[in-house]
């Protein structure tokens, strides 16, 4: 029997007490493992969100918005400046135009309605005042057909996903062919199907596919390659908007500042930085909470082992004194007590890690859902605050806030707990650290036991 065997055997000297210590320690290790899993999973999600959500910067010619307003299109030189700006990983360029009965054989699937008429009257009031006698004959019966030239057809999707092609196939947006995707409403109105042709600016286009976004305005339009639209409208090299994607939401503010500096007053630049920040702030809250949990559990674990071993050493001072009296060196006696502490730690760590692996999934879900509830409450308060202040049934901007919240909720609810070897290594490292802390002080106490004093006071 050597110090190792004695140390292990002594751990089982009081099964109930050792069992309780091991159980408490196992719970703290389980907590460490699950909090590490939660934190790691949330950090992975944060990185994913940072590279996807709120990373778009929209650059438009100054004074324009959604085809309204005025100003000059963005030039090739400006586009070159945009694409060469740091942190911009990709761009989607778009040019929009309106087809009227003068330059297409198609009929719009939209009606003016009261809103469209009012808008048109406002827009044309000054020019039409001089030719009011012709108003009844020149006013079109339907709005123009929106034609979009783009470098990415998916940019027309209303929900950020890929454009849904209900029949036919998509087009090569980087090309310059006279092909187009036609919205399902416009196609129905004009009896168009895949392979049909139509004319625009005296050019004949072939319908490559019919798309369906569920949005009536969008489904009443036409999408074609950017270069094709630039060519047929004599606007080579220019665009009406650019959506630039930044590599991480951390860099959005700096990129916006850089673009504003280089483009000056020629462009209006908007970003989703606030949305990006609120998307990750909820997740960062969970990560911080998990880190606090790791530290608290580690401290609790160390305290459990430390106090248990101090108790053991104090109870067995006489035994220590006797062992030293009969020739036990400090190293051998201290070693035996360290082994006792390590045995408790190893048993607790193994049970704790298994327990931690089992509960890490539910624990992560629980953390995320509790944070969600908290976010829900906060968002509801914000919304009701807005409603109260404006005294209306639906506050301006409420949809934006709700949309942002939905994004947060989606981000948080999509956090999946994943246990990696790294987490187990970190947990093992924490366990070793706890074992060292938990046994170092008792070992020091053991070494200080003077056999003469112990035997004198027996």
């Amino acid at each position, binding site marked *: 029997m050597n110090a190792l065997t004695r140390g292990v055997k002594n751990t089982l000297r009081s099964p109930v007490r050792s069992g309780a210590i091991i159980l408490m320690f196992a719970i703290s290790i389980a907590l460490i493992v699950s909090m590490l899993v939660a934190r790691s999973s949330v950090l992975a999600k944060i990185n994913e969100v940072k590279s996807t959500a709120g990373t778009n910067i929209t650059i438009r010619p100054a004074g324009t918005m959604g085809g309204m307003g005025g100003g000059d299109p963005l030039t090739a030189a400006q586009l070159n400046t945009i694409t060469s700006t740091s942190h911009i990983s990709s761009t989607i360029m778009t040019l929009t135009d309106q087809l009227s009965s003068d330059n297409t054989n198609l009929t719009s699937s939209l009606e003016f309605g009261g809103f469209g008429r009012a808008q048109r009257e406002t827009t044309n009031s000054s020019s039409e005042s001089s030719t009011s006698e012709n108003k009844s004959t020149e006013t079109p019966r339907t709005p123009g057909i929106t034609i979009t030239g783009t470098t990415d057809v998916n940019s027309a999707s209303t929900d950020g996903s890929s454009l849904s092609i209900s029949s036919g196939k998509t087009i090569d947006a980087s090309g310059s062919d006279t092909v187009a995707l036609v919205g399902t409403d416009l196609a129905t109105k004009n009896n168009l199907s895949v392979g049909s042709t139509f004319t625009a600016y005296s050019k004949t286009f072939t319908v490559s596919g019919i798309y369906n976004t569920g949005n009536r305005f969008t489904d009443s339009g036409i999408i074609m390659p950017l270069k094709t639209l630039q060519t047929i409208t004599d606007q080579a090299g220019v665009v009406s908007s650019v959506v630039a994607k930044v590599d991480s939401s951390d860099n959005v503010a700096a990129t916006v500042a850089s673009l504003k500096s280089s483009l000056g007053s020629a462009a209006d630049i908007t970003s989703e930085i606030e949305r990006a920040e609120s998307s990750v702030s909820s997740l960062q809250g969970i990560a911080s909470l998990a880190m606090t949990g790791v530290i608290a559990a580690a401290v609790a674990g160390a305290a459990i082992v430390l106090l248990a071993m101090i108790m053991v050493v104090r109870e067995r001072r006489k035994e220590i004194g006797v*062992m030293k009296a009969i020739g036990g060196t400090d190293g051998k006696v201290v070693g035996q007590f360290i082994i006792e502490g390590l045995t408790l730690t190893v048993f607790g760590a193994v049970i704790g890690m298994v327990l931690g692996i089992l509960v890490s999934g539910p624990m992560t879900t629980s953390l995320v859902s509790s944070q969600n509830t908290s976010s829900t409450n906060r968002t509801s308060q914000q919304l009701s605050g807005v409603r109260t202040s404006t005294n209306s049934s639906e506050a301006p901007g409420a949809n934006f806030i709700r949309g942002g919240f939905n994004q947060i909720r989606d981000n948080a609810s999509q956090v999946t707990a994943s246990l990696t070897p790294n987490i187990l290594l970190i947990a093992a490292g924490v366990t070793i650290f706890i074992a060292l802390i938990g046994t170092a002080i008792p070992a020091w106490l053991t070494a200080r036991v003077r056999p003469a004093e112990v*035997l004198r006071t027996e």
Partner: protein
Amino acid sequence: MSLEVKNITKTFTTSSGDVTVLKDVSFTISNGEFVSIIGKSGSGKSTLLSILGALDSPTSGSIVVDDANIEKLKGHEQTKYRAKKIGFVFQQYNLVPNLTALENVVLALEFGGYPAASRVDRATALLAAVGIEDDQLTRRPSRLSGGQQQRVSIARALANEPAYILADEPTGNLDSVTGKKIFSLLHDLSRKQNTTIVVVTHDLDIAGKTDKTFTLVDGKITTKTRS
């Protein structure tokens, strides 16, 4: 080989001031002698035994054992001295409660650096020599009688063939019959193995049967040698 105590003084510092329990104590014990130390409670008998066993240090004076001044030994050298040259027998037996009778003796052999392969055989032989039956070898101290525990304690003290056995009231917790048996055991050891034995006792009968008796009175020692 001899154990020579020269002008030992031991003073303890207590809350009520310094207390000197040993005052200029000197004596010599020859190899193979069976010596007793008697004195009233608190007279410093156990303190003297602790100093002889290098468990404690004298405030002044020296102890020379086999030409080595033990209070000048370093910590690990004193530990080695205890493991190799000294065997302790305590009034309370002081066996390790979680270890069996056999394991308690093996523990002393391990500390003394005895080869691992033959520790169990030697421990078994030692326990047999002091009268511990085979079926008692695997019992823990709590399942042994006081006399049996003291026998195990003596076997443990003998484990590393020490030159000196220091016994502090070895019969103090035993009934008179068992006490006599234990004393006889120690006496036999002294005679057969030529082991020097120093016994601290209250029992004047026991003291009367030893080769030499030191009496401690008020920290000072007187010697009575028998032929």
